[in-house]
């Protein structure tokens, strides 16, 4: 993927996903949007992909993406642009049942 206007952003991960990033809780990537940031992340750490995205490539329903403490679902979704110094947090909702 081509990065049109790359910005250096930090992605913070919950404990459960650090197993797939060599124990790192924060990963820095260069990207122009939230979507591109997550693509870059899963390119760097391939095993993360199955936990973030389903077989159709859609973000799993229980994975929430916060950009600087704001849920991107309430902003512009995955096309939300990022700027240098932004922090993206991946926060799961925990769900289950019978």
């Amino acid at each position, binding site marked *: 993927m081509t990065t049109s206007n790359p910005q250096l952003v930090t992605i913070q991960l*919950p*404990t*459960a*996903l650090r*197993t797939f990033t060599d124990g790192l809780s924060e990963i820095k990537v260069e990207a122009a949007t939230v979507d591109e940031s997550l693509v870059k992340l899963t390119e760097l750490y391939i*095993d993360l992909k*199955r*936990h973030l995205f389903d077989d159709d490539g859609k973000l*799993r*329903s*229980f994975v*929430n993406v*916060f950009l600087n403490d704001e*849920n991107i679902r309430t902003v512009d979704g995955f096309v939300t642009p990022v700027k240098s110094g932004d922090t993206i947090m991946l*926060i*799961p*909702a*925990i*769900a*289950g*049942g*019978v």
Partner: protein
Amino acid sequence: MIVITDEKIAEINMYAELEYPHECCGALLGRVESERKNVIGIIPISNKREPEAKHNRFLIQPEEFLSCEKTARKQGVDLIGFYHSHPDHPSFPSDYDLEHALPVYSYVIVSVTLGKADEVTSWLLREDRTQFDKEFVQILNCSHF
């Protein structure tokens, strides 16, 4: 292996019975030593599913997940897993549980039959997400301390 006292099990059972016929849910705080997880604290969390779905579904919102992580950090422990109940259903993880689980965390399930909590099991998601593996639950008798 997950190690938990009988008092903590009784606490989870109590919440499961109080919420019956709905599912209860909560977080498990503790310490990880090699392959052994020691449960130190329990945080009961309100099931955020809509009322008509609470009998067979539970939901812990991301904000509550963050709050649990912060509480764990303050106490110098880790968020090691979650518990929930299966009202009138065995304490085996469902396909829905599998679809929504994350690796590393312990998923403790208590079955509740006709309002009475009975079997408690714990499960770990395989890293390839294909299935859960049963985790041995060691229950410590508090009267021994």
